[in-house]
């Protein structure tokens, strides 16, 4: 298999000023709209279903299928919210679309809205993306001025408003129902499901939530057709993905690749291999919430949804983190739990209190004060917290933590047996 970058979504990323509408149009932006409006909305949904496009926000839910869950003729408006919260650690792909080719995403919004009969769309962008939100807003203003948004779209009898809503520093607002609460002006606390947003979402109306990259994949599917999209990737994981490779590699960065490539070969050939000539200790395949792979497991893993599931981990957001031999896995676990604990919205006790408890135990182990029973307790907490909460943020913490406990248990034990705490050593030295 050839391990090589492809340029579908990133086709315009290297073109200077492609974020400006004149340049973007010269390179094909908005050229699919005539075709779009000549089709029936159901045909558009069918085409997207056939393309095999799966949601790129992390869960990989088929995009066209989600759209078809919208109830018909409720008399209520239908909303589209584009998820640009991009806060899962190790995920940094959507921002390239926002900054390098925002018109591709706006065109995608038009395609999606036409397909689902939506006339009002909100883009939820994380508050830290300061220059990114400016570029995005300029692009939207340009699209309005050029007649692609507003009372008509490209001269067609179709009204579409697009509004950017800025978050303000809360990872949990990436969770789709917390995101809706946030647009409604509330704390970002996820809602119980059902009802699912497709039935009762923003302002109580049917709502579709899609990731930036999912939406930005639509113009290619419209232009070239479902089969052209499916030609990339594997049977169940169609198309290409913007992979973010970070951590201990020589060439970290964002790379567009077809799905299905061998993980280790991608790390070696695309990202330059483990840095400083060091040995590989583990790979996090799809953002911090996905279970870690040992080097021997990584050998057989390919970058697609099926293979990651077979390896008892997840494709997630395609944020690959490479860990070299020097990484202290207990410290890593502490860093991870601290993140999820900090970002818990606080409404479920197992998540709010449980993650705090896990953090304390890990810190106790790190300080050399831990016992073997603490390792078992951590493991037990993972089992007891998971799936007992309103949303899966808690599982996003416990699933990876369990993988480190199981695969690197000896490192936790070493902290207890060899007692690396200098403070304690001193105590023992002076009887």
């Amino acid at each position, binding site marked *: 298999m050839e391990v090589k970058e492809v340029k579908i979504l990133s086709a315009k990323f290297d073109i200077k000023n492609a974020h400006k509408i004149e340049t973007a149009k010269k390179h094909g932006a908005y050229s699919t709209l005539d075709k779009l409006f000549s089709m029936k909305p159901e045909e558009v949904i069918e085409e997207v279903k056939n393309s095999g496009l799966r949601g790129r926000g992390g869960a990989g839910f088929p995009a066209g299928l989600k759209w078809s869950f919208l109830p018909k003729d409720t008399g209520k408006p239908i909303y589209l919210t584009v998820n640009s919260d991009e806060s899962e*650690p190790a995920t940094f792909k959507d921002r390239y679309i926002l900054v390098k080719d925002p018109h591709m995403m706006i065109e995608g919004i038009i395609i999606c809205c036409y397909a689902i009969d939506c006339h009002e769309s909100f883009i939820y962008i994380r508050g830290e*993306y300061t220059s990114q939100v400016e570029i995005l807003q300029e692009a939207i203003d340009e699209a309005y001025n050029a007649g692609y948004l507003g009372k008509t779209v490209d001269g067609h009898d179709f009204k579409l408003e697009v509004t950017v809503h800025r978050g303000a*520093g809360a*990872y949990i607002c990436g969770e789709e129902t917390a995101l809706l609460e946030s647009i409604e002006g509330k704390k970002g606390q996820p809602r119980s499901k059902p009802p699912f947003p497709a039935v009762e979402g923003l302002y109580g109306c049917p709502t579709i939530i899609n990731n930036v990259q999912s939406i930005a994949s639509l113009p290619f599917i419209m232009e070239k057709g479902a089969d052209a999209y499916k030609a990339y990737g594997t049977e169940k994981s169609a198309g290409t993905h913007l992979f973010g490779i970070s951590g201990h590699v020589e060439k970290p960065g964002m790379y567009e690749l077809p799905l299905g490539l061998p993980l280790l070969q991608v790390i070696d050939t695309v990202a330059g291999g483990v840095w400083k000539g060091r040995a590989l200790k583990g790979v996090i395949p799809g953002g911090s919430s996905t279970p870690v792979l040992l080097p021997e497991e990584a050998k057989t893993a390919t970058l697609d949804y099926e293979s990651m599931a077979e390896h008892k981990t997840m494709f997630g957001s395609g944020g690959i983190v490479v860990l070299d031999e020097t990484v202290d896995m207990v410290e890593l676990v502490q*860093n991870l739990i601290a993140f999820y604990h900090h970002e818990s919205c606080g409404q479920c006790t197992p998540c709010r209190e449980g993650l705090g408890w896990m953090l304390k135990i890990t810190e106790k182990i790190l300080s050399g004060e831990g016992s073997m029973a603490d390792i078992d307790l951590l493991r037990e907490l993972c089992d007891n917290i998971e799936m007992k909460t309103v949303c899966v943020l808690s599982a996003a913490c416990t699933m990876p933590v369990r993988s480190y406990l199981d695969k690197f248990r000896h490192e936790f034990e070493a902290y207890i047996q060899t007692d690396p705490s200098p403070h304690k050593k001193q105590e023992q030295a002076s009887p």
Partner: protein
Amino acid sequence: MSDRSQLISTGKPFAFDQQRDKEFERLAKRYPIRESMILPSLWLVQEQEGWVSQESIAYIADRIGTFASKVYEAATFYTMYHLHPMGKFHICVCRTLSCWLRGKQEIVDYLKDEVGIVPGQVRDDGKYSLEEVECLGHCGTAPVVQINGKFHENMDVEKLKVLLTTLQ
């Protein structure tokens, strides 16, 4: 972390300036309910004043036509809203996974020494404030530092030294 429940009173009434007033009215038309203006209004306040005071919360509630408690709830939940004045240069260092793997601790330690404050503090002279924040979405160019909203990627102590001299 600083206490995110206490509001500070300036003792002076708050109002949007002309520019923000117009922006408020423009944005309010985009949403079907007024409460959706809570987050955008808090941003406008912070743009104008640098932080969110007790008076500004009362003003937003009044302007929107909602309870001050609702605005308070949002202001205290979302960590990017500052509930007290920050330094002229607000330095955020990412503490999360990829930045940690690529040396964020050296950067925090250097800043502690050089700037003389620990994360969560504002320096007495008001020049700097320091904060450790969670993943900033720039993990491929880790470690990253964000100063007054501007990203500085692939940071190391040497680059930071130079950068600090430019902050006047």
